[in-house]
């Protein structure tokens, strides 16, 4: 097995331990970046040499791209966070001790995500996601403000219960598989399960999927399980908001999809599609309406994340090659665009000293680079060309309307309502007489890197990526 995959996993783990010991936060922030760079490089190496699946780890068409994406967003976020915390320290909101903790947790969080993505074992997957919850809960409460602790508490309680339900689902899967492939690891290994899926008792699978959907779905942020998401995004440090939206939601959804594959391969089990569609549509419509009354900029974009997770869930729910392809593309595009937006928001909030939307005005005038970047990000997330989100929404809407007209109309309605809110806000944020004039810390490179990728993807997708997505789309049924 090539060293690439181990490096991807070990680098963050080691760095997490190491960073816990580094007292100098500036050094730590750059070590953080370095570690992420290593991870990203290794993840790119995965494209070339694809190791065979082991009992614990697997690398296939589904997760290879997501791993690279995760490593990339991790890297850019680390770069962003280096500048971000500089300002936080300067303004005295964070002390070095907490920063040590923060950096360690950042790496640990990346580790858990990468582990979850590359896990070939249901147990490992569960442990990884549980670890991700733990680390993020602690980082959300980093500021120690009442609001942040309340957010962390809510996050823990809801996602803890979710995780518990997911574990129960996992046990049920094992229970279903064990008669077929005997006790032991085999009955909890993706590759094996997928191979013998057809012989597994479908009824238990159904039951298990319900628990897994509700469980992991909580972390995806699907309505009505979404309540933790906005507050966690709003109260934590902005880099964490970026990775929460950009990575954690994707990984949780990834878990759900793996199980969906299992059901699809089984054949006799209930089709989970309608369930996903209902939850997706409700998330979409709920979030779309919620956007109108938000006053806190980070909470605003957190709700937009819920909206997009809804769209994605709907896409996988309706299924079929086109919709699944659209869903996968949308996952990637959303994580890039949304984290880019959070980068911009972080700078904007620091520049204007408030998180209230009313307090931020005319960014394109006061900070042109930042303002236009934010605008571009919102345009991208709103699904306007030439950005990648448009392609996925195009595929989704057209293919849906051809098959389920009414659902298509609902989908379009939700997207349009959300769009109205986005335009309303972004115009006020980016145009008009400017408010905050403070200079911004750190580089805008991460923001524009993400936007560039999203832009390119909107115009041209590399063939191997397409091939992977199509393969996975076929598996998702």
């Amino acid at each position, binding site marked *: 097995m090539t060293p690439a995959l181990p490096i991807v996993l070990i680098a963050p783990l080691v760095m997490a331990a190491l960073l816990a010991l580094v007292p100098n936060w500036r050094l730590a922030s750059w070590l953080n970046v370095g570690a992420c760079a290593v991870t990203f490089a290794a993840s790119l190496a995965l494209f070339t040499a694809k190791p065979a699946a082991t009992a614990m780890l697997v690398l296939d068409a589904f997760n290879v791209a997501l791993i690279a994406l995760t490593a990339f967003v991790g890297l850019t976020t680390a770069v962003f966070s280096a500048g971000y915390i500089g300002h936080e320290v300067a303004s005295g909101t964070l002390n070095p001790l907490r920063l040590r903790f923060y950096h360690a947790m950042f790496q640990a969080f990346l580790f858990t995500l990468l582990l979850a993505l590359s896990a070939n074992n249901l147990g490992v997957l569960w442990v990884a996601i549980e670890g991700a919850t733990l680390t993020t809960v602690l980082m959300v409460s980093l500021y120690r403000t009442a609001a942040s602790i309340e957010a962390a508490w809510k996050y823990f309680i809801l996602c803890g219960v979710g995780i518990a339900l997911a574990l129960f689902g996992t046990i049920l899967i094992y229970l279903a598989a064990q008669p077929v492939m005997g006790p032991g690891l085999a009955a909890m290994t993706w590759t094996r399960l997928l191979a013998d899926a057809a012989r597994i008792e479908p009824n238990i699978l159904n039951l298990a999927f319900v628990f897994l959907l509700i469980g992991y779905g909580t972390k995806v942020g699907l309505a*009505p399980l979404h309540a933790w998401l906005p507050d966690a995004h709003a109260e934590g440090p902005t880099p964490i908001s970026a990775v929460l939206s950009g990575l954690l939601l994707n990984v949780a959804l990834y878990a759900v999809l793996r199980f969906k594959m299992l059901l699809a391969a089984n054949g006799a089990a209930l089709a989970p599609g309608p369930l996903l569609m209902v939850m997706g549509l409700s998330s979409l419509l709920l979030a779309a309406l919620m956007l*109108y009354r938000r006053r806190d900029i980070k909470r605003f974009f957190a709700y937009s994340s819920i909206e997009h997770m809804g769209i994605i869930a709907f896409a996988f729910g309706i299924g*079929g090659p086109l919709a699944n392809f659209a869903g996968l593309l949308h996952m990637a595009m959303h994580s890039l665009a949304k984290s880019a937006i959070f980068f911009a928001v972080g700078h904007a909030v620091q520049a204007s000293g408030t998180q209230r939307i009313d307090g931020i005005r005319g960014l394109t005038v006061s900070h042109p680079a930042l303002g236009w970047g934010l605008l571009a990000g919102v345009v991208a997330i709103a699904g306007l060309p030439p950005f990648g989100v448009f392609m996925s929404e195009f595929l989704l809407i057209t293919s849906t309307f051809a*098959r389920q007209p009414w659902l298509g109309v609902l989908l379009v309605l939700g997207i349009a309502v959300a769009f109205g809110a986005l335009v309303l806000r972004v115009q006020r944020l980016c145009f008009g007489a400017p408010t905050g004039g403070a200079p911004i810390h750190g580089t805008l490179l991460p923001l524009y890197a993400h936007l560039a990728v999203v832009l390119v993807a909107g115009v041209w997708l590399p063939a191997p990526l397409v091939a992977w997505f199509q393969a996975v789309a076929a598996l998702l049924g």
Partner: protein
Amino acid sequence: MTLLFVALLALFALAVVGVAARRSPWVGTAVYGGTAAACGLIGLWAVEALVGRGGVAAAVLPIGLPWIGVHLRADGVSAFFLLVVALGGVTASLFGWGYERAHARALAHHAADHTHGESGPVLPFFPLFLAGMSLVLLANDAFSFLVSWEFMSLTSWLLVLSTHREPDTPDAARLYLVMAVLGTACLLLAFGLLVGTGGDYRFDAIRQHPPEAGAAALTVLLVVLGAGSKAGLVPLHVWLPLAHPAAPSHVSALMSGVMTKVAVYALVRVLFDLLGEPMWWWGGALMAAGAVTAVMGVLYALMQDDVKRLLACSTIENIGVIVIALGLALVFKASHTPVIAALALSAALLHVVNHSLFKSLLFFVAGAILTATGTRDLNRLGGLIHRMPTTAVLALIGAAAISALPPLNGFVGEWLLFQAILNAPALPEWSLKIGIAVVGAAVALAAALAAACFVRLYGIAFLGRPRSAEAGRAGEVGRAMLAGMAIPAALCVALGVLPTLVIRLFEPAVRAMVQAGPFDDRSYQPWIWLAPTSAIGNSYNGLILLAMIAALSVALVLAIHRWASDRVRRSIAWGCGHDGADPAALSQYSASSFAQPIRRAFGGTVFNARDRVDMPEPGDTRPARLTVRWTDPAWAFLFTPVRRAVNWLADHVDALQFLTIRSYLTLMFAALVVVLALVAVVRS
């Protein structure tokens, strides 16, 4: 198509230049010059394509949707509309160059007392906007079509926002983008229906398998909604009078004169080409929508006091006329009388190019007025004919042309349209025969009202005495702007005098859509005569008309000055004792008072318009004031309720943000139990 690609790439490159070199003093010249050149290339290519080989050229690029690629194809229709875009692009760049320099100078001049501060960037988006429109016309698969369509909306939105310091721009821009996206959504759904589940988004594939009746009907509805919202069909027009004027004038010209035509192109492409054999009622529906739009549009225009808003509303009217012509063409195509269909379609296309010309011209005029006086409010203008003589002449041409006066181009379009309408008896359906008579009345009414509307515009703005100090101080604008106005003005005359040439030019487009030409089975067709086949023995000749008018009036002048007196005495006009006494010329008719008779005749019922006259007591010297209040039915009955509904929902859903953790847990628990119960039920 190489030439075309070069031009398009140049446009994109110019956008980059506009960003990169934004500090350089020459950037404006470079970008606008380059854009003009690129548009010139596009125009040349289009003409060559039309004259040369019926204009079919195709290409596939390895980008866009992975398994489809970007399909581009230029047939006659695309080439024709490309020509319209190119014309608009050239003139708008020329005008915009001078316009922006003038405004930069004004800004530098009184930067101190200038309230608005510098405006947002225009340069990068201007060429992109043109490129987007051209790509819409070239796209030959659903994806690239919608990408370019939405790209067009996006860039124009940003162009509108370049004036974001103006008080009412943001709302206009927002409404615009939301309406644009709703329109795109409709088109998305329409293409979803056309493509089906196969996922083959190529237009060629759609052409091979046109949808069956039900789906086709739904598609028509969706396309009319989608393209109509962009073109400004009532009641989807509400954004148009707000957004078009908000942009800088040369952009307004492009949005009103050209972008709406791109929407018309979408209608033509889908209804005549992609949907295969039409049903007669499609055309009926189009005509109904067009008739309402035409009449309502011009009535809106008559209610406006803002020059640019007035022009935008008149765009609505013209779009209505074009849509009526399209509907006629569709009806005749459905009833298998292709030659008449060709006549109607020619009328539509001719009106497309006509309107793009005089509407650009008039928006340029509005821009010139804005530059010279700093206001767009009719009631603060007046007497400009003395201070902006050249502009006044060009504006007069524009006003006369849009009022469909012979021998200018506007009239030719109307003439062709009426010739097509007069063929109604050839139709089988009774409803249509009678309906078309009504539609004809609507067109006539709209035309007559349009004349009134532009007498009002020109008379108030250019004639009479200045109604404000700014208007009194105004001066003629620079050469570039004048040139930008002169080109379309000249073309308006040329097309009016020699319409047959241009109709011949776009005959390939007509042929491609209705498989016949307006002059078919006519053995000999002298090019100075306009005598379409199906215009039963009727003909029109603008050239002779113009010559006669010129000759007769010259003769008249000479004769009278030779035989009768030619003495002239200047004196003060009888102004009811107001002579010098009202410097603000308040005794003059104002824009509102001019529109009053028509408001009385129509406004009361349509807009429930109310005049309030505040007449001072005798002896009181303050001037009487006439205030007009009116409501737009489209807002009152459609948009305000929708907005209210969304707000109501938002208010009520918002409670979910503020629940306790326990209630959220309960939600989760409920979800779990419900789903479990569902599974149990489904299984048993």
